[in-house]
């Protein structure tokens, strides 16, 4: 038998187990519900799972943008040629734009993970508080 051949091609021992047939309707119900839920499931594009890549790109843009802006400032101070100075202004603005875009990317992908756990913790705390309040009211 090859590794990819499957187990259930052989006859099942289901019928040997007492009570297995009696529970068959329940089995169908849960299995049907499961299949239905999976049919509605949206499977994300694999490209959407590249959060670490975006995070690194954001950090890189932040650093590179800032470096570009500083380099442009130095360039504009090193010359009296207005053409070169205008180039430096363009470079500087590009650098600032890259740094702002990088910061936004970095914040977006670093905060998502943190906020997810923070919200889970908040939900848990609120549920506990609600339980405590209900218990206190029940005791009154």
């Amino acid at each position, binding site marked *: 038998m090859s590794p*990819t051949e499957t187990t259930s091609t*052989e006859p099942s021992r289901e019928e040997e*187990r007492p009570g297995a047939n009696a529970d068959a309707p329940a089995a169908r119900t849960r299995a049907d519900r*499961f299949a239905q839920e999976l049919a509605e499931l949206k499977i994300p594009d694999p490209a959407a799972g590249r959060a670490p890549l975006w995070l690194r790109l954001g950090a890189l843009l932040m650093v590179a943008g800032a470096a570009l802006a500083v380099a442009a400032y130095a360039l504009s101070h090193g010359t009296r040629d207005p053409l070169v100075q205008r180039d430096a202004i363009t470079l500087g603005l590009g650098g600032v734009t890259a740094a702002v875009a990088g910061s936004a990317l970095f914040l977006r992908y670093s905060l998502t993970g943190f906020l997810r756990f923070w919200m889970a913790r908040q939900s848990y705390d609120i549920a506990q508080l609600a339980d405590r309040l209900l218990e206190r009211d029940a005791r009154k």
Partner: protein
Amino acid sequence: MSALFELRDVRAAHGRITVLHGVGLRVAAGEVVALLGPNGAGKTTTLRVAAGVHPAESGRLLLGGRDVTGARPRDLARAGVCLIPEGRGVFPNLSVRDNLLMMTFTGRTRAEIEEVAFSRFPVLAKRASQTAGTLSGGEQQMLALARGLATDPAVLLLDELSMGLAPLVVGRLYEQVAEIARQGVAVLVVEQFASAVFGIADHAAVLVRGRIERRGRPDDGLRAELSALYLGSPT
């Protein structure tokens, strides 16, 4: 019988090391399949791929007949795939009740979850206020199973249920697993100790170095082959 859970020709790696080389498995509703094999065979990785926690390099994961390869683990969990990891995965500093309360994310109320857990494992009701870390190994495993059942699973993935437990306790836990399967849940059990799961498994597959080397009914023939695999073939 149509499969509720199926892995088709799955390959997976840890870094540059390929761990699974084309693994195929099927589990139907109400069926218990045991995945056996020595340490480092890739059993846990298979379960992690099945739960969507570990990405497969190639191959397919089919649930309820639908190809869900690449689906997020939380979506699979919400639909009804439940992984009980090796080491039980309970919160040791929280009480039994709070451990169960964590499962309210499924939309079930606290009362419903406690009803499911305490009716199946009455000892947990007695220990409801006790912190999970102070429970015995068997009770912690019961708590892990109870937490899993609270999610109303359609597919239950169990990793080394018998780890560190006395044979008597393991027997009782597997009786519960068989009962869960009888209610229509597809159960895939990973075990290193075949004797623990042979009593309840409908089928067994033996994984060695990332490949399914043998599959069939859990009978004496398979047991003998497993012994040869673990201890070396008799000369």
